[in-house]
């Protein structure tokens, strides 16, 4: 199943919204770069989809706390997720 990678803020881009429209059972979502701002909004308490992963370094860079419902990951875990899923779909605009 697909691994979706979102790298833009949900407050200024429709990248996350478009991704969620394409999200189906069995898929997974990785928030990177400005995509981690979803943690301060839509995905704060109860994510609408799952599983949701978040690059810890990107959240830390931006002063965001990763909520319990989202799994903090490093680059190595991200790479592993990419081997466990296919295709890999980037949403960057």
């Amino acid at each position, binding site marked *: *199943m697909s691994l979706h990678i979102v790298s833009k803020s949900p407050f200024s881009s429709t990248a996350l919204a478009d991704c969620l429209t*394409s999200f*189906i059972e069995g898929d997974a979502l990785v928030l990177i770069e400005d995509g981690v701002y979803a943690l301060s909004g839509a995905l704060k308490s109860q994510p609408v989809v799952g599983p949701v992963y978040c690059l810890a370094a990107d959240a830390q860079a931006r002063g965001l706390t990763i909520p319990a419902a989202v799994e903090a990951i490093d680059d190595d875990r991200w790479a592993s997720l990419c081997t466990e899923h296919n*295709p890999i779909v*980037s949403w960057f*605009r």
Partner: protein
Amino acid sequence: MGKRSLALCRQAPYGNALAREGLEAVLAASALEQAPDLLFSGDGVFQLLPGQEPDGIGQKNLQRNLQALPIFDIERAYVCEHSLSQRGLSLDDLATGGPALHPVSDIGKLISSYDTVLSF
């Protein structure tokens, strides 16, 4: 190889280079007989509007690239129905002359049926 790939086209034409460079990548792959399928979603559906005349902004017409697709055996393309209705458009509003356009309601299911997705 038997691998199936999808080009996911989400950008409007002309405002930035991604729509054009995406189609160029698709044409290059097709010339090597590795044509991906195409899915237009989000603002990418605007690539399919008829009557584009970009001379006045000094750009080449992107629809020529679309019309070239059938030459490379890209006979059909998918269009996200949700994206169309969000933009007040229907399939009838889109241009003909390129590959046949197939509306898709569940693009998640479509995407997951491919081995590779190229996002543009």
